[in-house]
């Protein structure tokens, strides 16, 4: 009989009575694997759903989009495709105000005007089902049900859209409604192009997106057709998008989300590993006697290692399988939770890859974290079998094995991080983050051990003194508990701090803003009428002129577009909405150069009457510092702008820092006063109203008299952002709680590993006259301190992490909501104390040794 088989079978036989206990010790890995499997298989389902639905998301094989009506050249190119059998459908998307018939209630919506061929793939599902077809034959609209709620309307009621009135013939099914933030800002309204034209909303310079969908015959490749027409289309400032591009864009944005929550999954798994280490220590401690007997009976170190590694791996696999099952169960619930944040319908399909990865990673993590306590078997002497009082001595230094294990664990963390992050750089940053957090928490626990030792001679009450002493006793579990509680608190509080500060910055914007209502798309001839309506509530009107860059330092923009990377190309190609004025705004500061001087204004800039179709002498422009960097432009450089056909030459005289999140119109390029006055332009206006009723009334009046003017109420933006943040963060906070909850089995197993000594001490104390209450208060002291230190360390770490995130990633002010962070510490204490006292019940009740 093969000797390994014999050992293997001995391992199975020896472990059979301990299966459940070992499984309990490994339970922390269940949480980790559950988090991994649910997140990964959710991500894979999302990717697959995006693939399946991307044609439907785009509606055709190709899409051509532009911010302005298509030029004749574009139309000609598209028309020529008809000979190839390419079918065409038009649509126009814009933001606009709609209202009920008596103008008493208004709402900013996302209008989508479509022709009868739209869309080629998928369908716009409505209730009743015929609604979408009816759009083309009569003046009707299909709306998101939230709009009906907002305006208090029903199907069959009339809706004012610009200058026309349309019948609400049905509602959009959730699949076709906009999701998340977009929907919160403006619910979607479908109408025909004819109805949109009747509404008279499309005026010169109106912000709208024009789109042509193409359905390409099967014998032509959509990709090559896109490549063929791209140069002509892009020359006309329009963009071509294929299904795969749209798919990639969707996947990218979802990828960021799943990567972020994937990080939490990995952290939960690593915490599970810490739990496994404590659990295995407890298990080996329970098996100490058996191990010493086996050694007496002739077992070598290797044989014993094989026996206990076999048992650990077996149970780790069972735990990983259990975790996978829990993960699948969670995965079934996730699509419901994610329905509001993801733009596709997610169908559930078991992702074998995610399942396999979760199980393998879970079992591997459990193994590498279990190895250290298993290697400690070397220190269990056969002598313990004949001497009951024989204590484990550190006869062998495990420094080499420990170093190898450390490398294995760090290698795993780095490898898995890189694999999951999809890039070496991001993976390394993430792994380094985990490393730094783990190191900081480890050092905190060492500091705690050292500090409590200093209190040895202080004259505390006995129970407090003994509770403190438990923190630095031999084989104490201070490190693993601080690590697990700290990581849980760290995650929870980082997410909370980030969310708090983002919401806070929005409300600061709200308070600091000059106004609370922004009107846009005001035509010059409407300005006087608009001012008379808004009257004293009007704070500011700002002219907006659309333009593009035609050359920089005499080099045509096309050569820049060819030479630059895709990331910056946008800066050269985009349409700029610029303004002109003589002073800086509240949110602007000059970082270099100087603001326009009045003297220079008078001498070097053209007066309004001179702005004609001839090139005018150089004026001045102030650029936002970020865009100047993207364009590679510095002070003194010359930029020629194409202001709707008229070249305007400027010299860059200053660079500005702009606080973009202030509720006021901000611009990349600001021109000298009057230089653009005669250019085709629109106005944006800011008003302040005193109450939400006044806001609604003003919006309604403007919508009635000047229907093409749209308005945004800051409180609606804030509530939209808050709503979205709450949805995302409740999903993420749930996952962060996962990491916190993983701390529970870590504490339970850590306690089990010192149970024998604790019970012995408790009996001794009771023999010497201690009451059960006193034994309990020793434990209370111990776990309260662990909770306070673990929670506080995690919160402090998170403060640094969130500060970095907000300052460098979100560019926001950072403030610490002390009371709420205290709450996180209290949760940590609660988990530590409750779990600690429950798990040690048998200790303070003990009357005899286990």
């Amino acid at each position, binding site marked *: 009989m093969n000797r390994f088989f014999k050992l293997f079978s001995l391992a199975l*036989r020896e472990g059979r009575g301990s299966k459940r206990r070992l499984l309990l010790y490994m339970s922390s890995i269940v949480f980790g694997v559950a988090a991994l499997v649910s997140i990964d298989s959710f991500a894979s389902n999302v990717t697959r759903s995006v693939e399946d639905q991307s044609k439907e998301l785009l509606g055709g094989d190709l899409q051509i989009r532009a911010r302005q009506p298509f030029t004749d050249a574009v139309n000609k190119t598209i028309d020529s495709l008809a000979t190839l059998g390419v079918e065409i459908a038009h649509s126009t998307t814009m933001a606009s105000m709609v209202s009920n018939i008596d103008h008493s209630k208004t709402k900013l919506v996302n209008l989508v005007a479509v022709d009868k061929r739209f869309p080629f793939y998928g369908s716009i599902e409505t209730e009743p089902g015929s609604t979408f077809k009816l759009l083309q034959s009569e003046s009707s609209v299909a709306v998101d049900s939230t709009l009906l709620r907002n305006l208090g309307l029903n199907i069959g009621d009339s809706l004012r859209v610009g200058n026309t009135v349309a019948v609400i013939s049905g509602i959009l099914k959730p699949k076709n409604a906009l999701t998340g933030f977009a929907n919160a800002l403006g619910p979607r309204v479908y109408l025909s192009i004819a109805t949109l034209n009747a509404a008279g909303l499309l005026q010169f310079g109106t912000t709208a997106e024009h789109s042509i969908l193409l359905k390409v015959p099967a014998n032509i490749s959509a990709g090559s057709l896109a490549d063929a027409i791209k140069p002509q289309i892009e020359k006309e400032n329009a963009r071509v998008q294929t299904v795969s591009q749209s798919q990639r864009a969707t996947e990218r944005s979802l990828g960021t989300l799943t990567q972020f929550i994937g990080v939490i999954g990995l952290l939960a798994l690593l915490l599970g590993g810490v739990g496994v280490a404590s659990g295995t220590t407890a298990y080996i401690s329970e098996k100490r006697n058996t191990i010493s007997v086996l050694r007496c009976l002739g077992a*070598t170190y290797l044989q014993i290692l094989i026996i206990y590694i076999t048992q650990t791996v077996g149970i780790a696999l069972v735990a990983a399988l259990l975790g996978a099952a829990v993960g699948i169960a969670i995965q079934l619930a996730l699509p419901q939770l994610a329905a509001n944040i993801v733009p596709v319908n997610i169908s559930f399909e078991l992702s074998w890859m995610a399942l396999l990865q979760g199980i393998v990673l879970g079992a591997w993590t459990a193994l590498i974290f279990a190895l250290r306590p298993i290697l400690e078997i070397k220190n269990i002497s056969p002598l313990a079998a004949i001497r009951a009082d024989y204590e484990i001595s550190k006869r062998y230094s495990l420094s080499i094995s420990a170093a190898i294990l450390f490398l294995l664990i760090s290698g795993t963390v780095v490898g898995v991080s890189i694999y999951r992050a999809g890039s070496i750089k991001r993976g390394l940053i993430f792994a380094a983050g985990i490393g730094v957090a783990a190191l900081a928490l480890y050092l905190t626990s060492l500091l705690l051990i050292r500090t409590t030792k200093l209190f040895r001679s202080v004259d505390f009450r006995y129970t407090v003194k003994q509770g403190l002493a438990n923190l630095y006793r031999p084989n104490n579990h201070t490190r693993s508990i601080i690590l697990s509680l700290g990581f849980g608190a760290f995650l929870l509080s980082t997410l909370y701090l980030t969310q708090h500060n983002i919401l806070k910055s929005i409300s600061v914007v709200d308070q600091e803003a000059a106004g609370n209502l922004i009107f846009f798309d005001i035509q010059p001839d409407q300005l006087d009428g608009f001012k008379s309506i808004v009257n004293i509530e009007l704070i500011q009107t700002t002219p907006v002129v659309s333009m593009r860059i035609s050359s920089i330092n005499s080099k045509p923009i096309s050569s820049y577009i060819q030479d630059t990377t895709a990331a910056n190309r946008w800066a050269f190609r985009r349409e700029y909405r610029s303004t002109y004025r003589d002073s800086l705004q509240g949110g602007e500061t000059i970082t270099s150069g100087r603001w326009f001087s009045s003297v220079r204004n008078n001498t070097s800039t053209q007066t309004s009457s001179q702005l004609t179709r001839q090139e005018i002498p150089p004026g001045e422009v102030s650029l936002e510092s970020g865009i100047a960097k993207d364009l590679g432009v510095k002070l003194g450089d010359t930029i020629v702008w194409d202001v709707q056909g008229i070249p305007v030459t400027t010299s860059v005289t200053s660079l500005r820092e702009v606080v973009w999140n202030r509720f006021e119109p901000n611009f990349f390029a600001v021109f000298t006063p009057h230089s653009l006055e005669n250019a085709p332009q629109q106005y944006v206006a800011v008003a302040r109203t005193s109450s939400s009723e006044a806001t609604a009334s003003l919006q309604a009046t403007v919508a009635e008299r000047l229907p093409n003017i749209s308005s945004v109420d800051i409180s609606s933006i804030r509530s939209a952002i808050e709503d979205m943040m709450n949805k995302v963060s409740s999903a993420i906070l749930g996952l962060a709680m996962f990491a916190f909850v993983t701390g529970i089995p870590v504490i339970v197993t850590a306690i089990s590993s010192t149970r024998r000594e604790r019970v012995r001490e408790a009996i001794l104390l009771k023999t010497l006259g201690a009451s059960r209450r006193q034994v309990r208060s020793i434990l209370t002291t111990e776990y309260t301190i662990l909770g306070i230190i673990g929670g506080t360390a995690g919160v402090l770490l998170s403060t640094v992490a969130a500060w970095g995130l907000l300052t460098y990633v979100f560019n926001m002010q950072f403030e610490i909501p002390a009371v709420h962070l205290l709450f996180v510490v209290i949760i940590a204490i609660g988990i530590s104390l409750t779990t600690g006292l429950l798990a040690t019940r048998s200790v303070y009740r003990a009357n005899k040794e286990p």
Partner: protein
Amino acid sequence: MIAAKDVSKEYRTGESPLTVLSNVTLSVGRGEFVAIVGPSGSGKTTLLSLLAGLDTPNRGEIVLDGTVISTMSEDERSRVRGSKVGFIFQNFQLIPTLTARENVRVPLDLQESHRRSSSDLDEIAENLLARVGLSHRMDHYPLQLSGGEQQRVAVARAFSNNPAIVFADEPTGNLDSANGEGVIELIREHNKTSDTTVVLVTHDLKLAELADRIIKIADGKIGGEIVNRVPNDSGSSGTMTGRPLIDSTE
């Protein structure tokens, strides 16, 4: 069979060393049944642990079956124990998660050299259990057995690998007198039938009387020796060497 030559053992307790055994020399022949007696703390368990290769002396050497084991590594000593040594402990030390049959099999499972099948090993275990009168308890777990039964399983286990020497550490310490006598009888019977050397450590003089020879140990030194009988084919005598046993023990 086994010999200790000028063996000393010290333990470190704090700063000062504690000498537990000092220059002990003894030898036990093949098939001999020797009892080592002495009061608590006299060093008898330390002597057993050195003889059995569970620990190594600070000075001197232990020779088992012609091989010096005191200089071997821990794993080498484990292999020697696996093939040549059997153990009977005071508190039985059966593995709680294994049945009686499986417990008896453990030394055979751990042996790397032989190639017997699992059913062969079961058969060996069953025969041994039958010899100790436990045919009906083979599939019981230690917790389901009485103390006497557990120790009989331990006896069967000690002899399962056909050892050259069996060490018994206070084997009756946790048993009533009837069970204790039964267990000693079994050990004695195995000793006679299989020519296995037995080294019994006890503080019970009555029990020690059953041995061929009694070695008395006190304060870490050999304090005397009584030869009750010459083992097996060597006949018997009542020779006493050193100080009389009766005078020095109680």
